[in-house]
């Protein structure tokens, strides 16, 4: 097994863990952490893609590297925005859950989220 395959498998495992956490955890903060784990896995896959497509004499294909920088910035911005929303929710309600069991909320989706 060469390094690229090993890192590829690590990336796949991170994607799997992150996806599992994002789907099963009810807590928004944990969901955000899971999203970041998932994101790291994807960035690792991009790195592997870059390494595998490297021309002779080069360390890696620069295009996936350019993409992954953009993707990291996007994921960072997304995390910041999600955290800001969770904080605001905590200030407003004293809780940071997504269960809409408050009387003013919607009652149609209860139990589904």
């Amino acid at each position: 097994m060469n390094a690229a395959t090993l890192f590829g498998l690590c990336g796949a495992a991170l994607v799997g863990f992150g996806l599992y956490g994002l789907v099963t955890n009810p807590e928004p903060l944990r969901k955000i952490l899971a999203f970041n784990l998932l994101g790291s896995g994807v960035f690792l896959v991009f790195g592997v893609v870059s390494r595998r497509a490297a021309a002779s004499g080069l360390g890696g294909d620069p295009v996936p590297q350019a993409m992954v920088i953009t993707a990291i910035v996007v994921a960072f911005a997304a995390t910041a925005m999600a955290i800001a929303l969770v904080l605001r929710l905590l200030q407003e309600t004293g809780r940071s859950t997504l269960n809409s069991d408050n009387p003013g909320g919607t009652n149609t989706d209860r139990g589904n989220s």
Partner: protein
Amino acid sequence: MPDANVLPDATTTDGALLVLAIVLPAAGVLLSFVLGGRYAERIAFVLLPSGFFLATIIFADVWQSGHRLIYIVGDWKPPLGIALRADGLSAAMMVAMAVVICAVAIFAHADFGTRAGSVEARAPFAFWILLMAIWGAMNMGFLGGDLFTLYVAIELLTFAAVPLVCLDGRAETLQAALRYLLFALLGSILYLVGTALLYGSYATLDIVLLSRRVHMEPATLVAATLMTIGLFAKTALFPLHLWLPPAHAGAPAAASAVLSAVVVKGSFFIVVRLWFDVMPAMLGPAGAQLFGALGAAAIVFGSVVALRQQRLKLLIAYSTVAQIGYLFLMFPLALDTVSAQLQGSSALTGGMLQAISHATAKAAMFMAAGLIYATLGHDRIAELGGIARALPMTIFAFALGGVSLIGLPPSGGFLAKWLLLEAAVATGQWWWAIVMLAGGLFTSGYMFIVLSSAVAPSGEPLKLRVAVPRYQEAAALALALTSLLLGLVALGPIDILQVGRPEAIMGGSR
């Protein structure tokens, strides 16, 4: 248009217009930040009409020449560089979205207007910036020529759309926004995994180059599946629609109109790009039937739940869930039975027309609901009695929007559903025709519930909380009339949707 596809990409005359369509909104956002909140509205009111003007020029250009407009950014050709391409689909969607966004801007002037001498407020500042950002992100999604640019576009769209949900800062809208953001993030990261896998297999993400290289293998299949699921989550296709009703119903009226009419169409458009342009031969009959089945489930589920709603805005939001279902019926209907490829056909035209007519009709309905809410102080459907006498123009706009959703002639919805029905009959897939007709009946049902309640006489004299400005009613009515008269495009520019369809290169795609 074979030569447009066989020739290597080169910047066409007027290609720079495509850059302008993306740069203008971005410049507006930056300028608003620099000059501050009191100028944001004025900047939007200068830039949004110019954006509409720009979109019509691009539309006319594509329609008359019958070719795509192309701009190669920095003259770096794909696969290293980025191409912007406007085909018929992009041009038509750009014009439609510009119309909706301009009407929303006029409507929002009452709620988010900045009067002379007033202090800077947070909500108007945010609203105008986000509106321009949504416009720019949509244009980027329509014009982007490679899958990574489209990823950036849907991310921008999400970041602009989520804060619109919670502009008023109430706890339940914050929850709705957070749930929306989490769904959207899951969607975009799945899409990103897909692009990584595709780049790893084919060393390009450019749509034209990729469509020539792509072939059926495990990596492609996994990539396509992940990207599609991600985009479904962003488009709120059943069963990934859970975030949509609270988010769209809780937002302020002008924001609901943009979210429901414009934002969900962005990710839908990328689904179309992915399956019609990048890999038309890969969906196959089974995949197409699955897309159609999800669409049909969305129609039935959304309509039945809409019938049971007691609040007007939630009813309209569930109606959006149902109407999104129609968009996905075009996949089984556009599948050519001989070659098993997705083709530019009357089904594709019908599907895109459905997207456009739903955008105009739904924006009008959300605006009308917002005016009703402002006037009465509530939107409980059972207590709407007498409102038709107080706001006749608004109720008329709401009814006209419903006419388009149901699909009565001469509305855009009628032409769209007629084209889809025709394709269903022509390809012998009668089951989709039944779903469409049943959906029309359900839609008539919930429109009847609302309208019969609205025109009923009220027991006691209505207490009107505010007098709604006439131009707000006019904006809603104008959009509803647009949707109603959209059926008339059958006489003219409907052919533009076929401009730049890549049939010519499909022969060598495998």
